[in-house]
Each structure stands twice: as C-alpha cells, then as structure tokens.
C-alpha cells in the first residue's frame, strides 16, 4: 500500500478503502447477529440478509429487538471513539491521545453515577446526567486552558489530567459509600455496558455523529499540517485556531453523547487509529474514514465477545477491549515502536 511511486491519496483510494472496510463491517454485523444464547444459524441470517427466507416470530424478536440495536449502537460508539482518537492524536500532536484524555470520561462518569445512586432510570436519567457531566467537563477544561481565544495543547492536556484526577476522587467517593446492587451498575458503567441499547439512542446520535464527521473530514488536510507543528501550519495558510475549536468541541460533543449511552469503553480510541495508521499511512484524508469504520468493526466484535464468552452472564465490553487491546498494543509497539518514540 505504501511506497508506490505516486503515493498521494486520491479520492479513488479513499473510496476503495472505505468500501473494503464497510464490507468487513457488514460481515462482522452478520456474524454478530447469529451469535448469542438463542441459536440462530449464520446461514439463516445470510439468507435473510439477501432477501431469501424469514425467521419465526421469536427469532425475529431476538434479532430485531435485542441484537440489532445493540450491534448498531456498538458500531456508532466505536465509530465515534475511534474518530475522536485519531483527531485528538493529531490536534494534540500526541500519539497517546484518545477522546477521553481531556477528562470527558470522568465527568460523564460522575454524572452517570449520580444518576445511578439517586435511582434515575437507565433510559433517560442516567444518560442525560452523564451527557451533562461530559459537557460540563469539556467546557471547564477548555475554559481554563483558553487564553485570548487560543487553545494551547500542553495546557489543555495538563488541565485534562487534573480535572480527571479530581473527578476520579468524586467517583471513588461514591463507590466507597455505595454498597447494594447499585455498586454493580456503577462498575459496569465504568467499564462500558451496551446491554441497554435502544433504537431511540441511534436516532438521537446518528445525525449528530454524521454532521460532526463531515465537518472533521473537511479538516482532514488541515490536520495533516497541524501534525507538523502549529506554527508551520499557520504559516502555510491553515486557520489553526478555528480547526482546533471546531474539532475539540465537535469530538467532545459526540464522545459525550455516545458514552452517555455506553459507559466508558477504553482503548478503542487509542488502538484503532494506530492500527490504521500502520496499515494505511498517516494522511488523515484516508486515516479518518478508515479509523472511524475500523472502530465500529472493532467494538462490534468486542461487544459480541462480551455478551457471549461467559454466556448467559455478560462482561463489561471495556474489559474485552482492554483485555484484547493491551497485549495487541504492546505487540504493535514492539514491532513499530521506533516510529512513535522518534522525535
């Protein structure tokens, strides 16, 4: 893929890569639909997907009411977190960045935990409080670190780390003072839980995610230059501050929305962009769509494992992403580490 004579990224390259990844995504969705406690054969699913054959009432209910919304939400969450990761890595010029690095996850967690502890429902109250927590955190971090309209990356990171530490203390306080079944809910939320997926969540978040993705994609060329240094990008004509403001706010908004539905799912936003960068190179015009779709594939696969591996019980999906992600990431670092550590 790399190293051909004319290596520039063309629209054709982007479209072909996108179609291949979408094909993989569809295959993963179909396989995931067939897996679960109730046996539905992959062959039936495939026949149904190309318009041949139907299911009995019960199988249809399982597929349509339980598995499909969960798979689609996992896809959207993975899409958004991975998109957030690739954009934050570019904006902060930091390979360790991921969408939670500015503290948004801990803010969202505090909101969600308050919702759980005070007995709000999982369908409206908890996501709403979590989203408010996320939004509050982002505005706080950006508010503290903006100076004369400028967002300085090192200050943002530092503020994020400190705000994160503060909210983690709040989270620990609630965990220490909660003892009943709510504790189990809290812990599941903190490691990501997609079992509450509903179609309504998809229709709320999908338009927003598509809009933000479109805007971010328009900035992909700008991000390439920002990676080489903000001053250099400015001098070559990139409106650096505009790109930063729009991207930080846009990514934070969709991250806040998806984690209010799913809880905190780590590693997706870190590992998928790095994997794609290795396969396809660092140009964001290709990397952004590839990471986003790749993130959807990865999280659907991880969530399928989470709900089937100790069936009929379930694991929090964040356990699976970290359990698979960490060793894989270490392997990648060993293989290609020099490219990250070079300065």
């Amino acid at each position: 893929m790399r190293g051909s004579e004319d290596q520039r990224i063309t629209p054709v390259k982007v479209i072909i890569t996108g179609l291949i990844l979408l094909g993989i995504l569809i295959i993963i969705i179909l396989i995931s639909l067939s897996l679960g406690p109730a046996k539905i054969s992959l062959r039936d699913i495939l026949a149904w997907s190309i318009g041949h054959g139907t299911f009995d009432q019960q199988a249809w209910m399982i597929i349509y009411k339980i598995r499909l919304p969960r798979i689609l939400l996992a896809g959207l969450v993975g899409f958004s977190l991975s998109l957030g990761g690739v954009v934050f890595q570019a904006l902060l010029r930091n390979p360790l960045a991921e969408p939670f690095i500015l503290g948004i996850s801990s803010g969202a967690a505090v909101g969600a935990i308050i919702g759980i502890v005070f007995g709000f429902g999982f369908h409206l109250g908890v996501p709403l409080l979590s989203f408010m927590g996320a939004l509050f955190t982002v505005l706080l971090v950006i508010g503290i670190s903006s100076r004369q309209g400028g967002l300085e990356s090192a200050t943002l990171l530092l503020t994020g780390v400190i705000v994160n530490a503060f909210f983690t203390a709040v989270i620990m306080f609630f965990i220490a003072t909660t003892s009943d079944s709510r504790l189990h809910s809290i812990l599941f939320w903190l490691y990501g839980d997609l079992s509450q997926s509903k179609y309504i969540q998809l229709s709320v978040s999908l338009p927003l995610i598509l809009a933000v993705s479109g805007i971010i994609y328009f900035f992909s060329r700008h991000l390439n230059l920002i990676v080489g240094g903000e001053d250099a990008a400015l001098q070559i004509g990139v409106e650096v501050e505009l790109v930063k403001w729009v991207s930080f706010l846009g990514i934070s908004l969709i991250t806040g929305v998806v984690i209010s539905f799913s809880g905190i799912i780590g590693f997706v936003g870190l590992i998928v962009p790095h994997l794609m960068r290795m396969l396809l190179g660092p140009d964001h015009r290709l990397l952004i769509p590839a990471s986003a779709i790749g993130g959807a594939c990865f999280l659907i696969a991880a969530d399928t494992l989470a709900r089937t591996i100790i069936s009929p019980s379930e694991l929090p999906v964040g356990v699976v992403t970290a359990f698979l992600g960490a060793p894989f990431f270490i392997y990648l670092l060993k293989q290609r580490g020099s490219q990250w550590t070079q300065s």
Partner: protein
Amino acid sequence: MDPELILRGVFFRYERQWCLRGIDFDLRKGEILGLIGPNGSGKSTLLKIIDGVLKIPKGEILLRNKPLSTYKRGDIARQIAMVPQESNFRFPFSVFEVVLMGRFPHLGLFPFEGKEDVKIARQSMRLTHTLDLAKRSINELSGGEKQRVLIARALTQTAHIILLDEPTSFLDIRHKVEIFDLISSLTLTQGLSVIIVSHDISLAAQYCHRMLLLDKGGVYKIGEPTEVITADTISTVYKCPVLVDKNPISKTPRLTVLSRRGEGKTLA
C-alpha cells in the same frame, strides 16, 4: 524595480515591552538578505510579522506594493513560505507527502491534489535534490536532508519570498554549506528573494547580498556584508570581543570570536 517587500516603521510587542521598535528595510528581487543579531533581538518575531502570523500594531508592511494586512492568510502563503528551524512530524509522513502539503494554499474546497500539483512537487524535489528521498519517512531523515525537504515544500507553495529561520543551526559544516549553496542557486535560477536568519555569520557573509544586524528590536546596521560585519559593530551589539578579517578566498568578512580571558589555554 520595486522591492518585493517593504517595511516602514514596524513596531511590535508581545506584552508590555516593545520587542521591535521602528524597523525599516526592503527586500529586493533575487536578493539574499541575512538577518543577524543576538538572541532575543527580535529576529524570529520579525519573520513571523513578515509572514503575517503576528499582526503589527504600528507601522506598514508592503508585499509587492500592497499592504500585507489586505492579504488573506492563504494569499500570503502563496507568496511567502517559511522554512522553520526544526520541525517534528509526530507521525511517519513520507517525504513526498510532506512536500505535496505545500500545495495547501492552492487547493480549493476539494481536498485532494491533482496531477498538476504532483508535477510542481516533483519539480521542487528535483531542484532541491530530494527526489531520491521521496518514499522515506520524514522522521528518518538527517537534519540536512530534512531542511532540503522543507525547502522543497516551500518551493511547492510557489512562493517568491522564502524566509528561513536558522536553517543551519543543527547541521555540521558540510551540510551548512550545502544549504547555503542550494539557497544561493535557487535565488539565481528561480528568481526567489530570501531572508535568512543565521548565527553562522562568516558563512552567511559569503552568500548574502546584504545583511541586517538587529539589536534590541531595532536595525543597528543594514548593508553589504563588509559594511555590517566589522569588529566594531559586532562586538558592540553582541557584547563580545571579536576579530574581523577577510576570508582569503571569497574576500568576505570573516569573524573570529575572542576568548574573554585573553589568549592561551590553561589547564585547571
């Protein structure tokens, strides 16, 4: 012929302290202007002002006889390119990709480069002898190679003014000369005008048509190297004893820095 760039009474301050106070000079077509001065004398700030990155509160800058403030960011980028002292691409972009990024200010809403852009990038790489590096990762290059690639990117911007901020400070002597040779030949063949900040005073004196000595945010002296580089001016501005004689080959001023302790070495 009208100068490419004219500065009249340019002032600038970051906080309260003025760091540029009343800068006047012009840049002629095809000229290499060496910008020298002690650390903190305002050299880098001056480059950022010329590039329109910093806005001046007082004074006037004319780019091809039009006020710089009337240009948009992208318009400036098509005329003036900057080669930074050092750059660090966090992720492994190939040399070709980096050079092609120079087309940024020329692309419209459609975010992909076309055949013509590739042609311009290749031409720039030919001129800077970087074609062989095309597939390499920018992060794997040596300091000298990287500077040549960044000059290629500046050419790809098709700018007619190139600003270089200490492009040779991390290079060994051979690569320093290579960069100066390259810049010199580009001004001749491509009609570029160049402002180069350098601490290699004797070397810059061999290549620059004129030199500008900055001191505490003001122009201490501007003129041909022989006028600017004298023991008197340099030792006054840099507050450091120096000896200036003539380079026996190029006949340009040659600077020797003198030890403050007088002559001779002593072992502790």
